[in-house]
């Protein structure tokens, strides 16, 4: 065993041991989210934007609206695109180049929560059925990775959508910087990620905890307190009881961040 690996294993054991004893390094409860700070509207070139800080993790999301053609099978609906970019500004383990599977997974999980909650009324984004609709590009850019990029990205995206306005559209031209109305937002889906380390389960892992985790589950809940998306990742498996408990906690713990986001509406 290499000395580097040996040291890490010892460290990992320490983290798990502390958690077993009911302690997290930053003093949180097992089922407690880090402090959340939301700063919407930071970016004037975007139709909507938000900077989210989850502890020391920082993510910025921006919304761009454009005119496009609708999908042939949904001629009366606007279109939605979600992209996360794990640019190496945020972490030494990120890389430049085409998106990798980690990036794609996060993008798709965030996208699923937004899409399945029907938080955007896509019918209202239709300009001319079958011909012209608004397309909503949600771009998520982590700036500082201190654990749990999924939740920070998901919350930043929803916050930026709540912040977004539809530009004026006259004679076939978008008038950037002038707006006709707010983006029609009807729900506030919140993502909650839980890590499994050994047999312990904690919420919202900080960087060290995330590195030590064996598996994770993300649960997206909507305003009704229902689940609208979930995703298990990592190599460890979960007992059914663990899953049930995770769902319960996700519903409970989503209320506070949801309130926080709606505050700015």
């Amino acid at each position, binding site marked *: 065993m290499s000395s580097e690996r040996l040291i890490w294993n010892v460290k990992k054991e320490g983290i798990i041991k502390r958690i077993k004893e009911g302690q997290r390094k930053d003093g949180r409860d097992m089922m407690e989210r880090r402090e959340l700070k939301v700063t919407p509207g930071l970016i004037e070139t975007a139709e909507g934007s938000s900077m989210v800080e989850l502890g020391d993790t920082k993510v910025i999301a921006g919304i761009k609206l454009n005119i496009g053609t609708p999908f042939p099978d949904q001629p009366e609906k606007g279109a939605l695109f979600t992209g996360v970019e794990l640019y190496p500004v945020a972490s030494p383990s990120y890389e430049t180049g085409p998106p990798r599977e980690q990036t794609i997974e996060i993008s798709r999980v965030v996208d699923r929560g937004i899409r399945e909650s029907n938080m955007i009324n896509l019918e209202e984004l239709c300009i001319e059925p079958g011909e012209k609709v608004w397309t909503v590009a949600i771009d998520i850019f982590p700036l500082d990775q201190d654990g749990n990029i999924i939740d920070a990205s998901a919350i930043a995206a929803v916050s930026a959508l709540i912040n977004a306005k539809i530009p004026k559209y006259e004679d076939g031209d978008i008038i950037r910087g002038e707006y006709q109305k707010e983006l029609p937002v009807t729900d506030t889906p919140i993502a909650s990620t839980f890590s499994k380390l050994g047999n312990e389960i904690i919420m919202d892992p900080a960087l060290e905890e995330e590195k030590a985790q064996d598996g994770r589950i993300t649960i997206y809940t909507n305003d009704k307190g229902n*689940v609208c998306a*979930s995703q298990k*990742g990592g190599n460890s498996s979960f*007992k059914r009881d663990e*899953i*049930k408990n995770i*769902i319960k906690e996700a519903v409970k713990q989503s209320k506070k961040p949801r309130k926080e986001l709606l505050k700015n509406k």
Partner: protein
Amino acid sequence: MKEKKLMKKGKRLDGRGKEDLRDITIEAGKLKRADGSAYLEWGGNKIIAAVYGPRECFPRHQRSPYKARLDYYYRLAPFSVEDRANPKPSRRGIEISKVSAEALSDVVFLEYFPNTTIDVYTVVLQAQAGTRCAALTAASVALADAGIPMKGLMPSCAAGKIEGEVVLDLSKDEDQCGEADLPIAYLPNKDEITLMQMDGDMTPKEYEEAVDLAVEGCMKVYEIQKKALKEKYRQFNEGGE
């Protein structure tokens, strides 16, 4: 589209009850070249899975001195869907491959084969909803056929919600018009869930119900997996195909 009635008197459009699987057949060892393989039909899905390895891992920097690397590839053949699928890997396919590889990595004894890679290739030749579970089910049989030591066979199956009811193994119509889909993979030996995704809208109670129903589905799939492997070894002992 949403107007189609998916259930009538407790029966689904294809005649199934809420807790019924579609028909499944699995044949182990269909390919000569691969180290292990399986051909599976599940409802209208037709899937081939092939395993190569353990073999030397390239490029070298992906090698681990502590365990094998397991790669999983989920692939739609271009003609497997109504609108020809682009041969380039899709974002959907990459996500499915990732969570499937993670599920199998918990089940295969990777630590027995340091510095190597085990590659699992699945190809959907014909797709009719539920392909990720079907592919993973076939892959598990192909791994067993390759003689790779595992904690156990890993079946996979989805439960879903249509017209307010939790049902097993959505058909194509149900998948398109239903309210939720929850695919899982499951390790019967340990009663643990190794893969879980979900989209749609379910109360926490429905979610729990769906997980339990999907596990039941997995147990049925598990029996079919075991039968396929027994059949293979029966043929082998009797002199083979």
